[in-house]
């Protein structure tokens, strides 16, 4: 339950740069395990301000990276405050304390669902206070007044007062404990079609992304980290570099070497000319081949048992018949099109950072650690990200920019070129999946076994002897009622840097799960859709619904021409249930063409339906890109991929027709950003099998070899 409070004007001004007067409300998002003592003063987080001149400001707590949260969140404010959405100025909040803001991280498909209550409550409370202010002014009951598009109207007389006229009086009123939220039928924006608020500036080049940000006098720096993973800088020869006009200096920073110049080209050219001496370090013999052998070896070791349900271990010990398969998902890169960059200005006692990030508070901590300046004197200005997908959850580049700004004594924009981003990513971890299904003498299915052998981003020792449940997402604790289930975990780390890639471990575990279900179905002579529905009977009707909806839309069960097949797969993750049904054609040379994807998503209910559609369409493209062609490989300790010729991403002509079906599953609101990813690869693999009889068990699929 969110608690709403007024924000003291002085506190408001402390955390924002906008001058305000009048009513400002925020809401306190209780952190888990927290209790509010009686009389305790709340620190509000989400600010909705109504100024005396009628200006409305919404401080959005979540970064916009193309996922549309900026729009979804302002729709909530506009509806509950009862103003025209175009009259709201949206300002991205500076990074602030968790006690005040909750989490500002745009990730985990949480922005709409976590802020629905506190943000809506704050706006509704403000609306009620403004109505009360008008009622007091007129000497009438609040019930005789109503809020309408920035005004309060006295129904019987038609008198009205604007919010601007009422705000200072309203600010002195007590905050309602339990503001009344609008009914669904009263929504003007929520649940309806609405244009994205940030699209106009993205069609004329005026939107300011991280790399576009400028401050007078800033320098530009191009960075290089050791190409061999785990290597270090010995030194360099900058004779040729310093001859490049515009180059100012070459500096060692915490993670490598930087060429600092007056403009980007000089820095790029200067870096090209720099002769760097790297110490390769301990991992110069790391190779993808070696990593694969390690995964195979670790797959034979005794695993940690995560689930042993309904007698599974005994069943597998003695099953007379079984089928098995090994699935594989490689390291992959996020590769957002806007390269990694950050602008920082470290002054004697304060720091300003301008950065495209998903995680403002992480940037805040890192800036404080790197600069040694207390965070109260650090301002993190979050800019638009040119794509993120999990890439910008960490903040190494904030450390880079702060370090270099401090060294050169002025503002600097640091930038990792495309090759640098690809070589030094925080990749999705590699994984190997050993699956088995057991059958009795009569061929009845008796057991499901999935051993996940994976690089774990959390390298904690505890995962040597305990299951890493996050790393088992999509493999363990599923709704499917397996006849018996043995889910096993084996951590197998390498020196590569890994992180959260959109949908995290679901994107690889679900590939294995959903493709092997089809293998079991085939063995049983069962339709893969029917088998899934049966496994979900009495367990999760909403997943059944998304499966049936997608299946119906693709025309499941119709006979397919030569070389074409249908495939289906589903997920329930990040509070979203989604199924993809796909129609695939395999050409004579083995090229996989996905013609059509019917996606059914139950996100609870959709605050911003077109936002849901955008996320599903985009997720299909991203997941298909990975399934078809993406892989990070290592040789001699060096990541082999550089630009898009070595790391090909989906092109226009490869994109299928995608139709999104939004199913209203009711409250609570679920997540939509990540659910579209996991089921796509297995649906395609399943369709390829239907078309050709060939099983695709390794991503990237490349061409089908018949």
């Amino acid at each position, binding site marked *: 339950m969110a608690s709403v409070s007024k924000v003291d004007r002085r506190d408001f001004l402390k955390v924002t740069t906008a001058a305000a007067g009048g009513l400002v409300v925020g809401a306190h998002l209780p952190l888990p395990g927290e209790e509010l003592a009686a009389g305790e003063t709340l620190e509000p987080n989400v600010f909705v301000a109504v100024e005396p001149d009628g200006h409305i400001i919404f401080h959005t707590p979540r970064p916009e*990276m*193309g*996922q*549309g949260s900026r729009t979804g969140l302002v729709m909530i404010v506009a509806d509950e405050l009862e103003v025209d959405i175009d009259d709201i100025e949206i300002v991205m909040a500076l990074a602030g304390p968790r006690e005040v803001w909750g989490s500002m991280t745009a990730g985990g498909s949480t922005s709409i669902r976590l802020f629905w209550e506190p943000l809506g409550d704050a706006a509704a409370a403000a609306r009620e206070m403004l109505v009360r202010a008008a009622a007091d002014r007129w000497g009438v009951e609040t019930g005789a007044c109503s809020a309408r598009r920035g005004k309060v109207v006295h129904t019987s007389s038609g008198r009205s007062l604007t919010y601007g006229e009422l705000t200072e009086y309203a600010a002195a009123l007590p905050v309602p404990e339990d503001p009344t939220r609008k009914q669904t039928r009263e929504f003007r924006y929520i649940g309806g079609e609405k*244009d*994205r608020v*940030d*699209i*106009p*500036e*993205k*069609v*004329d*080049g*005026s*939107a*300011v*992304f991280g*790399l*576009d940000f*400028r401050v007078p006098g800033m320098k*530009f720096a191009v960075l290089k980290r050791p190409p061999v993973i785990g290597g270090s800088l010995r030194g360099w020869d900058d004779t040729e570099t310093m001859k490049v*006009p515009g180059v100012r200096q070459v500096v060692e920073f915490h993670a490598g070497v930087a060429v600092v110049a007056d*403009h*980007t*080209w000089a820095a*790029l*050219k200067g870096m090209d000319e720099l002769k760097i001496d790297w110490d390769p370090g301990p991992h110069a013999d790391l190779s993808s081949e070696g990593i694969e052998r390690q995964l195979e070896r670790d797959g034979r070791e005794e695993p940690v048992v995560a689930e042993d349900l309904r007698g599974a271990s005994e069943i597998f010990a003695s099953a007379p018949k079984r089928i098995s398969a090994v699935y594989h998902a490689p390291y992959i890169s996020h*590769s*957002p*099109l*806007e*390269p990694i960059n950050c602008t920082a200005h470290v002054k004697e006692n304060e720091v300003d950072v301008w950065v495209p990030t998903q995680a403002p508070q992480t940037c805040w901590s890192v800036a404080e650690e790197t600069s040694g300046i207390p965070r109260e004197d650090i301002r993190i200005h979050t800019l*638009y*990200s*040119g*794509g*993120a*997908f999990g890439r910008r959850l960490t903040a190494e580049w904030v450390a880079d920019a702060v370090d270099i700004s401090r060294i050169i004594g002025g503002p600097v924009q640091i930038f990792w*070129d*495309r090759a640098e981003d690809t070589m030094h990513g925080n990749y999705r971890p590699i994984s190997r999946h050993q699956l088995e299904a057991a059958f009795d003498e009569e061929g009845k299915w008796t057991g499901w076994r999935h051993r996940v052998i994976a690089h774990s981003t959390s390298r904690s020792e505890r995962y040597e002897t305990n299951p890493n449940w996050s790393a088992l997402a999509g493999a363990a604790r599923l709704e499917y009622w397996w006849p018996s289930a043995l889910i096993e975990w084996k951590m197998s780390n390498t020196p590569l840097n890994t992180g959260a890639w959109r949908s995290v471990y679901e994107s690889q575990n679900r590939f294995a799960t959903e493709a092997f279900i089809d293998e079991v179905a085939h063995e049983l002579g069962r339709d893969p859709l029917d088998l899934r529905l049966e496994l979900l009977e009495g367990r999760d009707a909403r997943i059944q619904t998304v499966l049936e909806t997608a299946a119906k839309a693709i025309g499941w069960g119709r006979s397919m021409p030569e070389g074409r097949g249908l495939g289906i797969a589903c997920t329930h993750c990040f509070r979203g249930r989604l199924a993809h049904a796909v129609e695939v054609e395999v050409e004579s040379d083995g090229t996989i063409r996905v013609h059509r994807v019917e996606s059914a998503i139950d996100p609870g209910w959709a605050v911003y339906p*077109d936002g849901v559609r*955008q996320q599903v*369409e*985009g*997720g*299909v*493209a*991203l997941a298909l890109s990975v399934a078809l062609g993406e892989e990070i490989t290592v040789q001699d300790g060096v990541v082999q991929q550089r*630009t*898009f*010729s070595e790391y090909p*991403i*989906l*092109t*226009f*002509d490869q*994109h299928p*027709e*995608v139709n999104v079906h939004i199913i209203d599953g009711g409250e609570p609101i679920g997540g939509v950003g990540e659910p579209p990813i996991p089921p796509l690869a297995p649906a395609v693999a399943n369709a390829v099998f239907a078309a050709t009889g060939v099983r695709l068990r390794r991503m990237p699929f490349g061409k089908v070899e018949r």
Partner: protein
Amino acid sequence: MPAYSITVNGKQCTADVDADTPLLWVLRDTLGLTGTKYSCGVGECGSCAVFVDGALERSCILPISAAEGADIQTIEGLSEDRSHPVQKAWITEQVPQCGWCHSGQILAAVDLLRRNPDPSDGEIDEAMSGYLCRCGTYQRVRKGIHTAAKEVRDGERV
């Protein structure tokens, strides 16, 4: 350092830069027009596309010396107020997600429609395949092109 003269969006500009400076960086850093983007720096993705004497070029690999005297049009030069038919279509069809690739996508669409105001899906595929998008907006780009094409056929200037 030599000074290069170019016309950008109808305005005369000079750039005192080295001959090998790519036009991309002249636009972004020298002239402050950051609408044109960098995504790969090697001409593979199309984010940097601009019109040079009417032809669409990858500005990240076009040295300024090769653009001397040219008439350049960037995303900023399409209209004063987002009224170009492709810009309007991009808003109507809600095309961009993060938006980073769309300066290039939009100019590629403009280029296509200038040559062919009634493109088929196959012609759109061919024209647009060199313009990468990571967010997955390709389906809406296609729709946007069809929507803008209608306006162009109805007489709107592209």
